[in-house]
């Protein structure tokens, strides 16, 4: 089933055409990767899908529903979540609170309920805290749970950004370079976790990634972008075997062994 459909999206920044009729499809339950040279429009495409940047032309469909003009918070409620390339954490708030803020349901966020149904939302908070703990254990951040996010290192910030998205329990996740700035062991662990979520919970992943040696272990399908359009697609093996992949993106050398 086609979960996410991007149909001929165009985006101009001034005179620069960043997305030039980009089209692609992400099937439900897959790990789909988006690769391409720097400046090829990958992050902009994510921003357009997520409603952070309005598209000039073209449409985006999620579960068959047109979401092109939806604001991000409505897209999130449809079951899509985005982990930013540069983590956007709430720096003065503890890591714990950063995770809790991503919970899809928290009735105490309504001001009237916050005042009048305190026992109920306190119970919900306890349940969410346990969920947050699972995420923290996974990311090996449990001892830092109550530290303000602003005190974290770059790699740890990236982890919290991904943790927030996991906390949201969406149907599909857009992740912009999950492994950037993270040590190889942990990067593999993050991917293994994402893969596990895909296999056990049917989570769909759409990932921008430059570390191909990590990615090709996990991706089911790959899109290659160049100059704002999708130029090549297929399974990792097909893409790796295609000569254009090397001229456009990977260069002559092949440090990542074909799997």
């Amino acid at each position: 089933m086609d979960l996410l459909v991007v149909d001929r999206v165009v985006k101009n920044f001034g005179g620069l055409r960043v997305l030039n009729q980009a089209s692609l499809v992400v099937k439900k339950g897959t790990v789909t990767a988006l690769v391409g040279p720097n400046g090829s429009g990958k992050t902009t495409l994510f921003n357009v899908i997520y409603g952070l940047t309005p598209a000039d032309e073209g449409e985006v469909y999620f579960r068959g529903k047109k979401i092109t003009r939806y604001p991000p918070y409505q897209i999130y409620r449809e079951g899509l979540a985005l982990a930013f390339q540069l983590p956007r954490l709430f720096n003065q708030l503890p890591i714990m609170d950063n995770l809790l803020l991503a919970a899809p349901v928290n009735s105490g966020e309504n001001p009237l309920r916050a005042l009048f149904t305190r026992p109920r939302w306190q119970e919900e908070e306890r349940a969410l805290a346990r969920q947050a703990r699972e995420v923290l254990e996974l990311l090996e951040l449990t001892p830092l749970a109550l530290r303000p996010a602003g005190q974290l290192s770059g790699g740890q910030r990236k982890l919290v950004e991904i943790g927030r998205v996991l906390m949201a329990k969406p149907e599909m996740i857009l992740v912009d370079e999950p492994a950037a700035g993270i040590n190889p062991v942990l990067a593999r662990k993050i991917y293994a976790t994402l893969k596990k979520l895909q296999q056990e919970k049917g989570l769909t992943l759409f990932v921008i990634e430059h570390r191909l040696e990590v990615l090709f272990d996990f991706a089911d399908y790959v899109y290659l972008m160049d100059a704002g359009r999708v130029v090549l697609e297929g399974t990792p093996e097909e893409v790796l075997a295609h000569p254009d992949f090397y001229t456009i993106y990977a260069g002559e050398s092949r440090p990542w062994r074909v799997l």
Partner: protein
Amino acid sequence: MDPLFYLADTLIFIGIFSLLSLSLNLEFGLTSLGNFGKVAFFMAGAYAYTLLAHAALPPYLCFLGGALIAGLIGLVITLPALRLREDYLAIVTLSFGEILRTVVKAEEGLAGGVRGISVPAVFHLGSSRADALANILLTLGCLALCFLLLQALAHSPYGRVLRAIREDEVAVKALGKNPVYFKASVLFIGSCIAGLAGGIFAQYLNFIDPTMFLPTVTFLVWMMLILGGAGNNWGALLGGVVVELMNRGTRIMKDFITLPVDPNNLQFIFFGLLVILILIFRPQGILPEGPVKTAARKEAQNWISSL
């Protein structure tokens, strides 16, 4: 003169200004909404209370009505600015304060224009001492109620979202929450509380006119919050007490000391200096902001201590 009246006056003004400073803490301290028109919503509450009281409504309805009218005005005025960058809110609220005052000054039929309007007193207990005590109780009772309410909001998931909006609005949007809804609710609640303070002010003085609602009121409230500690309700309360006491202190002091400047300007010089010193040496205020305290935080404290 009976010192009770001076004490009553001090306590009631502390109560009124603390209410304003607490409401600004919700708006600016937690949500970073720069409301530079606090006096406008204070004034709207005072005039709404007065007009309702002249319509012979029971006092509790006048207070409630004054607060709600101020709240609704707050909502209507700020809604267009909420979608824009935050500086626009400051411009809109600041100019609204001036507009409202100018309109009330020019208007004759309803609220007396420049001549002001008398406000019927709530309490007629037979002696003015008893009335003063009743007024203290009313003011401090309202203050206690609003403080508890704001404290409950600040330490709830709602309060957490407000702080998140202050930190990064785009991230809040990406996590499924509409910041405009939260900001609008904050300005409604904040303006209601300012309106309630206005009602208390009007009914205590028994008379209001437009010259009582100059922008200085707004700046005094900002000073209270910055000094006490933005983001902390206790800080807002402390700021209200300290600044009001200093305000009175300098007024008394200038009768006893001689200075090479006009003694009337003493408090402005003193306050200006104080704000500068606080911003340089303790920008977080006397009582800095603490974390959101909910059951989730207790859980986390338990795991960390058992590690």
